[in-house]
């Protein structure tokens, strides 16, 4: 039956096309199918990466394309790695990454654990919790700017209602000590559902019979959590941390919309500095070198992380 269908298809193929296809091996056909994807990847990923590496050794400025491009060697890298402002931007980035990942993992895992209890209406709550993740960062940024308004913002009103502090003195976006936390709150609000979703997948993958065996052995709920739930969900938690870690190192949209790096430079993360150098000062070579440094940092961290993840999986 199958042979007859194949014969019919072969007979229906136009002769010039059939002659061409007949000469291609299976391997050749596989290459033919994947070559458009490879070409696309080369054009939009690999080529820009190598181009940026090349530019990082030059004094190229994108606003002066006709100027003679000079080779500077490692001068851009030396300047960046000796610049105190960029060093501070790196520390600000580390501060953001640390707190957002810590809060998102703790809240995300707790929510996943609660949702996994399968109470009445858990599907509705899951959908409701996932809503912030589905919104565009531009919408979230503008929406939270209104919430943080000292005069009319709901956030300031709630804090004032709870603490008794007048709402006009709660300046979340313009206060030096509160501005970094305002961004951490928004990022946590937006991306905790993502961590929750990955953790929920991990919790749902734990077979029920392991808990049944633990109950036969009279293991307490606390013991079951530490000996079964947490170790078996750990690869998923680590995966969520990896994804969020890489994303948060590149955090740009939320900071740009909420504070724009201010007040002063208290929320100026590395990506904001990079954007300023590339598109305000037009130092394309310099900013390319900065981008390469960030790329190596994230790539190196991802290597360590994947190694740790494989070790956890093998246990």
């Amino acid at each position, binding site marked *: 039956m199958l042979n007859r269908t194949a014969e019919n298809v072969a007979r229906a193929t136009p002769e010039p096309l059939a002659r061409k296809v007949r000469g291609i091996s299976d391997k050749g056909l596989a290459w033919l199918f994947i070559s458009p994807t490879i070409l696309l990847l080369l054009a939009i990923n690999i080529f820009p990466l190598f181009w940026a590496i090349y530019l990082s050794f030059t004094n190229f400025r994108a606003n002066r394309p006709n100027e003679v491009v000079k080779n500077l060697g490692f001068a851009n*890298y030396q300047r960046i*790695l*000796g610049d*105190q402002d960029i*060093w501070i931007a*790196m*520390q600000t*980035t*580390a501060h953001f990454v640390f707190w957002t990942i810590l809060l998102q993992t703790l809240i995300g895992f707790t929510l996943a654990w609660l949702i996994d209890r399968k109470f009445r209406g858990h599907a509705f709550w899951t959908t409701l919790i996932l809503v912030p993740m589905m919104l565009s960062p531009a919408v979230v940024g503008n929406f939270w700017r209104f919430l943080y308004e000292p005069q009319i913002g709901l956030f300031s009103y709630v804090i004032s209602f709870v603490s008794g502090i007048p709402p006009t003195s709660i300046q979340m976006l313009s206060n030096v000590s509160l501005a970094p936390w305002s961004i951490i709150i928004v990022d946590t609000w937006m991306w905790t559902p993502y961590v929750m979703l990955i953790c929920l997948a991990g919790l749902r993958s734990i077979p029920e019979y392991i808990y049944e065996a633990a109950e036969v052995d009279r293991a307490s709920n606390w013991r079951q959590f530490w000996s079964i739930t947490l170790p078996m969900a750990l690869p998923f938690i680590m995966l969520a941390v990896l994804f969020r870690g890489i994303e948060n190192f590149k955090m740009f949209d939320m900071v740009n919309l909420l504070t724009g790096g201010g007040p002063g430079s208290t929320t100026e993360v590395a990506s904001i500095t990079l954007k300023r150098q590339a598109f305000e000062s037009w130092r394309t070579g310099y900013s390319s070198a900065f981008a390469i*440094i960030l790329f*190596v*940092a994230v*790539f*190196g*961290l991802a*290597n*360590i992380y994947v*190694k740790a993840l494989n070790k956890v999986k093998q246990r």
Partner: protein
Amino acid sequence: MSMTNPVKRKSRWPAWARRGLMENIATALIAIGFLMLFQPFALSLYTYSFITMLAGTVMFIIVSKFPE
């Protein structure tokens, strides 16, 4: 049919250059470089962070192809 165990051929690859050990060294280099990049204590540590991280990353890529 004999039931003898197959004799394992001894690899010529030096023991010190096995993947496990080398990967651990590369990982340590990356981790040290990463901490140097984001630490708030000394500018000189920040200056040498990139080269440490780059050395670790390149080493990791190379040694992950070594035999176990």
